[in-house]
C-alpha cells in the first residue's frame, strides 16, 4: 500500500510539473466541449433553395412564399429553365430544387392529382433526408390550407375529418440538439483524455529508460499498475466534474437524474478506459505507436457509440460489435441519467457490463505487463 502511495505521489508531481501537458489535459477538453456542442448538430439550416415556376399564378407564388417564410431555406433563386437549375446544382449553388408544373393552380382547384418536382442534392445523404422532410412538411401544410379554403368557397356542409398527428417529444421536449449532444461529447472528452494519457504513460517510461530501473526493483506488478492508474482516474473524474458544470452553466442541460449515480458509473467506466490504455502501453515500444493504436480504437469507439448515428440503424453485425464498445454504454448512461432521470435499476445492465469490462481489461493490463522479458 505504501509503495502505491509513492508512485501516485510521483505521478502527480510529474503531471502537474509538465507545463506542456496541463493545458492539454484541462483547457483543450473545455474548448472542445464548448465548440463541438455548438457545431455538432443534426439540424440542417441555411438550405440553398431554388425553384422553377412554370405556372406563374397566385397559387404557385404563394407556395414559393411559404418556403421564403421558412427559417430553414434562406437563399431563393428563381430559375427560368430546368437546364439552368441543373447547372446551378452541379456547381453547388443550390441544395433543393422545386419545380412547379404548368396548370398547377388549375389542377389543384379541380382536385386533380398533382405532382411537384423536388430535386435534392444528396451527396450528404443525412442532410438530404432532413431536407426532404422539411419540403414535404411545407408542401403538405400548404396543400391542406388550400383545400380548406376551396371548400369554404364552394360552401360545402360537411367538413372532412382531419386526423392530425401531434408529436410529443419526451425527455427533450424542445428537441434541443445541444441537450442531446453535450452529454455525449462530455463522454468523448473524458474517454479520449484518459485513454491517451494512460496509453502513453508506461510507454514513455520505456522510452526514457526508467521502466527498466523500476523493473529491477522488487515492486509488485499490481502495485505499479494501480499507482499508475489512480492519478489518471482522478483526472478523469475531475474532467467529468468540469464538464457537468459547463453543461449546466453554458448549455443549461438539465441534470434530472442522480449526480452520485453519474459519478458511480463514471468511476467504474474510467477503469475500463485506463485498462485499455495500459494494455496498449504494454504492447508498444514508442509513444507514437501507442498514440496511433489509441487513436484507432477511439475512432471506432466514437463512430460506433450511437453518439452521432443511431445504433438501431446499423447492420446486425455492427450492432453486435457495439456490445464491446465501452463508449456506447457511457453515452447511454449519461443520456439516461441526465435527461431521463433513470435510477440505478434502469442502468443496471450497463453498470454490470461496464464493471465486467473494467475487470477484464485491468486483468489483461496487469497480466501483459512483464517485469522480465
Amino acid at each position, binding site marked *: 500500500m*505504501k*509503495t502505491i*502511495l*509513492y*508512485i501516485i*505521489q*510521483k505521478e502527480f*508531481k*510529474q503531471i502537474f*510539473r*509538465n507545463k506542456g501537458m496541463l493545458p492539454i489535459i484541462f483547457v483543450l477538453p473545455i474548448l472542445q466541449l464548448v465548440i463541438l456542442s455548438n457545431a455538432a448538430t443534426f439540424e440542417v439550416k441555411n438550405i440553398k433553395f431554388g425553384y422553377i415556376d412554370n405556372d406563374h399564378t397566385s397559387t404557385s407564388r404563394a407556395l414559393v412564399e411559404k418556403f421564403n417564410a421558412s427559417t430553414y431555406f434562406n437563399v431563393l433563386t428563381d430559375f427560368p429553365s430546368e437546364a439552368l437549375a441543373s447547372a446551378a446544382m452541379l456547381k453547388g449553388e443550390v441544395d433543393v430544387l422545386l419545380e412547379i408544373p404548368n396548370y398547377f393552380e388549375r389542377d389543384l382547384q379541380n382536385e386533380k392529382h398533382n405532382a411537384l418536382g423536388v430535386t435534392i442534392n444528396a451527396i450528404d445523404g443525412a442532410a438530404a433526408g432532413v431536407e426532404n422532410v422539411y419540403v414535404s412538411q411545407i408542401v403538405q401544410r400548404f396543400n391542406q390550407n388550400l383545400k380548406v379554403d376551396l371548400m369554404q368557397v364552394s360552401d360545402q356542409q360537411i367538413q372532412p375529418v382531419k386526423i392530425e398527428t401531434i408529436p410529443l417529444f419526451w425527455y427533450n421536449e424542445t428537441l434541443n440538439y445541444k441537450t442531446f449532444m453535450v452529454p455525449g461529447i462530455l463522454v468523448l472528452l473524458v474517454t479520449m483524455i484518459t485513454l491517451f494519457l494512460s496509453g502513453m504513460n508506461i510507454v514513455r517510461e520505456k522510452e*526514457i*529508460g*526508467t521502466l*527498466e*530501473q*523500476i*523493473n*529491477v*526493483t*522488487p*515492486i509488485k506488478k499490481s502495485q505499479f499498475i494501480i499507482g499508475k492508474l489512480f492519478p489518471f482516474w482522478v483526472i478523469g473524474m475531475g474532467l467529468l466534474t468540469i464538464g457537468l458544470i459547463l453543461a449546466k452553466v453554458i448549455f443549461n442541460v438539465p441534470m434530472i437524474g442522480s449526480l452520485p449515480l453519474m459519478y458511480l458509473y463514471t468511476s467504474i467506466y474510467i477503469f475500463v478506459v485506463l485498462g485499455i490504455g495500459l494494455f496498449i502501453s504494454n504492447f508498444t515500444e514508442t509513444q507514437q505507436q501507442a498514440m496511433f493504436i489509441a487513436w484507432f480504437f477511439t475512432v471506432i469507439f466514437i463512430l460506433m457509440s450511437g453518439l452521432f448515428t443511431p445504433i438501431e440503424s446499423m447492420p446486425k453485425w455492427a450492432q453486435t460489435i457495439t456490445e464491446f464498445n465501452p463508449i456506447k454504454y457511457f453515452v447511454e448512461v449519461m443520456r439516461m441519467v441526465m435527461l431521463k432521470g433513470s435510477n440505478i435499476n434502469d442502468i443496471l445492465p450497463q453498470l454490470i457490463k461496464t464493471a465486467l469490462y473494467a475487470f477484464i481489461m485491468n486483468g489483461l493490463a496487469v497480466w501483459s505487463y512483464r*517485469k*522480465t*522479458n
Partner: protein
Amino acid sequence: MKNNNVIQVEGLTKMFGDFTAVNAITFEVKKGEIFGFLGANGAGKTTAMKMLIGISNPTSGKANVAGFDVFTHAEDIKKSIGYMSQKFALYDDLTVKENITFFGGIYGLSRKRIKEKSAILIEELGLEKVANKLVGALPLGWKQKLSFSVSMIHDPKIVFLDEPTGGVDPITRRQFWEMIYKAANQGTTVFVTTHYMDEAEYCDRVSIMVNGKIEALDTPKQLKAKFEVDNMNDVFLKLARG
C-alpha cells in the same frame, strides 16, 4: 552459502532467435569483490547482466544471485541487488530529493529511513545546493553519482553497474571509483562493466567477453602476466582481436 560466492553462473546462455548473444558463460563472484566485466561493444555484457538482475529470461544454464535462482526467484533477487543502467534512468522531471524518496519508497524503506538516507546521500555527494533542483538540470557527472547512490539506497548485497562512467570527466571518474571502493569496503559486491582499461586495473578480478563467451577471467596482474603485456589495454586488444 559455504563457498562465499554471491553470484554463481554455470553455462548461462541467451539466444535471440538463431543468434546466441550469451554463449554458455560460467563464472562466480565472491562477496565483497569488485568484479570487472569487460568486452567490446556487442560482446553480450549487457545481455548477461540483464539475466543476472532478473529482467531478462535466460535460454538455458544455471545462475544463482544473492542466494536465489534467476529462473524461479527473479523477484527475490531484486530485493538484494542494486542496478545502474548505462542509460541514465532517474526522473529528469523530479528533484534530487524526490528521486531519492521515490526509489527509497518503492524499495520499501520507512519514511524515517528515507529521510536519514537522503540527508546522508546529499551530504556525501555534495548536492546540498541542488537538492531541490530538477535532476534534468544537473551535469552528467553529478547525475551518474546520484544514480549510483540511488541504486545503493536499500543497502543491496550486490550492485550491478553498467558502464557507469561513460562520458564522464576524469575527475568525476576518480570520485566515482572512490565511491565504488567505499561500497566494496562496506561489504557490497560490485559487478561493473567498463570500456576504460585503467578502470579494469582497479578491479579485484576481471573477465573479458568476446562474441558471447568469456575468454579470460583472472586478476588484472595475472592476466597481464599470462598475455605478457604490461597493461590491461593490451590484454584487451590481444583478446578482442582474436
